[in-house]
């Protein structure tokens, strides 16, 4: 019996490894302060809460996709929508739009969001179905698995694993530096 082909082709290394340092593929926000890498999912309400709590803190944020469609059926589609917006220079705008309203996540809502952000809609539609973007999302997911992410959101604060919505102690620590 031969197993079905994996989404990305080839066998990904999934053994333990810390979260990768921010690279050219990553989405970064903020220019100074502690590095906070977030693994999140746009359909996850705790991730939206976390996003709200981290906004405006003096930190450097990296957002990586950790879609779990068996739990959140639209998760991967939404990650791909954000990446497709990113190809038109609007990743964080789409990110904010998705977390800002998790009640409207169907395709027509995505088209409306794309229009509101001034995106080329035809290109957006083609890009979000491109295999390269799907592979990119899978790379994020796999890097999270290797780093031991087992729920969303999971933050790495200066390399330290912090699962769940950040509590007052962590927020205090991040805002006072």
């Amino acid at each position: 019996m031969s197993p079905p082909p994996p989404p990305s082709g080839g066998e990904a290394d999934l053994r333990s490894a810390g979260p990768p340092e921010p690279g050219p593929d990553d989405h970064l926000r903020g220019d100074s302060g502690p590095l906070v890498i977030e693994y999140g999912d746009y359909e996850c309400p705790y991730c939206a809460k976390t996003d709200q709590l981290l906004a405006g803190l003096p930190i450097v944020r990296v957002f990586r996709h950790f879609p779990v469609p068996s739990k959140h059926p639209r998760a991967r589609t939404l990650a791909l929508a954000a990446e497709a917006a990113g190809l038109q220079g609007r990743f964080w705008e789409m990110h904010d739009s998705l977390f800002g309203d998790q009640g409207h996540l169907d395709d027509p809502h995505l088209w409306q969001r794309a229009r509101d952000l001034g995106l080329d809609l035809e290109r957006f539609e083609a890009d979000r179905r491109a295999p390269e973007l799907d592979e990119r999302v899978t790379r994020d997911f796999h890097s999270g698995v290797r780093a031991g992410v087992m729920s969303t959101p999971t933050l790495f604060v200066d390399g330290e694993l912090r699962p769940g919505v950040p509590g007052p102690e962590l927020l205090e620590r991040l805002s006072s530096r």
Partner: protein
Amino acid sequence: MIEPGTPAPDFKLRDQDGQEVSLADLRGQTSVLVFYPLDFSPVCTDQLSIYQELVSDFEQRGVKLYGVSVDSAFAHKAFQERLNLTIPLLADFEPKGQVARAYGVYNDEYGTAQRALVMVGPDGVVKWAYCSPSPLEIPGANLIFDALEPTAAA
């Protein structure tokens, strides 16, 4: 907890569809018994959802996962449907927790299995076993991949 190198204790449990699955059915493949406390508890939900996303990665390596908890086959069926799981779920229901006890991962205080992973080789011998220090701590899927390819593990 059961030690690597020992023969896996025999078992015969019903899955979510009422089909019997026994240790003999696992011969010839590497299997991971994923012991977890209960269906529908939030932490288990994330654990099995994330393992589910990696099923094709496990299959590529010839590995099959089985969830095991003290819930009934009917609860397993509902849980599997809720989470869109294809991972079979085995009901360690009667006598309650007998298999978890045989593998040394039963928690008497909670009356459920502990959160533990037991890898059984194609020869029926335990290859690797891991028990989470607390039911709230989910063993990362990376630990299973480490156990599969130990020579190059970090």
